[in-house]
């Protein structure tokens, strides 16, 4: 076992994904920064509206920026994106908000970035499936009415899809398809991160074996 420290951010991410810590980590390896930068580049191409902030975040992580004022400026810029009226820019903004902290301290850095990118991917899958914000509002209005029941009793959770189908079969079908697509996209980014971590671990094991043979 190497004495190379695992950052709090990496340990928290591994715990969240139920991925075991590698047996061997070479000294000087900074997986936390490499993974953060990989996550930010995994969502390229960035829309023009977010490019400047994303470039700034990537540079700050690569350089291990130590100036707190730079991070505060990045956070303010990220929040402006998160408040944008365009839902895709908002989703990128949430990624930026999560990424706008130095990784060396704290535990939320990587896990929060991963969750925000999962949400972004789910949003993009939703848009690609043709689901609109008007559809979302219409579905929530129906689901809200169903959940409220008749004022005396409320339907059981498992009865809700069937009641939704009775009220608007076309919208329910599209709602289900959208949900399936969004959930798959959300899960696929988690799987990509798990694969990245597994790849990093294999590299360490190879390096470790190499060292033992000498």
């Amino acid at each position, binding site marked *: 076992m190497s004495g190379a420290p695992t950052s709090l951010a990496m340990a928290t991410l591994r715990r969240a994904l139920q991925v075991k810590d590698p047996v061997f980590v070479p000294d000087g390896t900074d997986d936390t920064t490499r993974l953060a930068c990989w996550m930010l580049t995994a969502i390229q191409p960035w829309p023009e509206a977010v490019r400047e902030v994303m470039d700034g975040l990537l540079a700050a992580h690569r350089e291990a920026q130590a100036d707190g004022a730079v991070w505060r400026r990045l956070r303010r810029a990220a929040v402006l994106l998160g408040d944008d009226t365009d839902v895709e820019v908002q989703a990128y903004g949430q990624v930026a908000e999560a990424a706008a*902290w130095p990784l060396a*301290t704290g535990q939320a850095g990587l896990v929060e970035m991963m969750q925000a990118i999962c949400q972004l991917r789910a949003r993009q899958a939703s848009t690609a499936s043709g689901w609109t914000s008007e559809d979302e509002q219409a579905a929530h209005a129906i689901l809200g009415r169903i959940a409220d029941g008749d004022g005396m009793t409320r339907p059981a959770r498992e009865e809700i899809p069937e009641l939704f189908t009775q009220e608007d079969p076309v919208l329910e079908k599209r709602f289900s398809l959208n949900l399936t697509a969004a959930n798959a996209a959300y899960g696929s980014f988690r799987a990509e991160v798990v694969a990245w971590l597994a790849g990093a671990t294999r590299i360490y094991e190879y390096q470790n074996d190499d060292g033992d043979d000498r």
Partner: protein
Amino acid sequence: MTMIQSNSGTSLASIDAAARDRLQLLVFSATWCGPCKAMAPAIEDIAQVYADDLVVARIDIEASPELAQAFAVRGVPTLVTRRGDTVIDRHVGSLTRTRLAMMIDDALERGRVGQ
């Protein structure tokens, strides 16, 4: 080391005693709440960064229904900033660490203006 207090009683006396005149962040959550679990690392980080100015208390709404009712909690997570008996702000739903830090900065700023 966790900086967060757990509160499962019917009153906030222990939190009030620990906080004295510092700001309090009450985090109403539930064991089955996915967004509460997802936010936990961000809350830990905020508790650490603001340790001099802030006391964070996690309140399980099922273990402390009286407190949930007293603070009109309708969903989890619900985040409440409070100083003494005065509620400063509240937010229902999860927040990024950045937004949570803004909420705390704003509450601290209001406290300074009020002094």
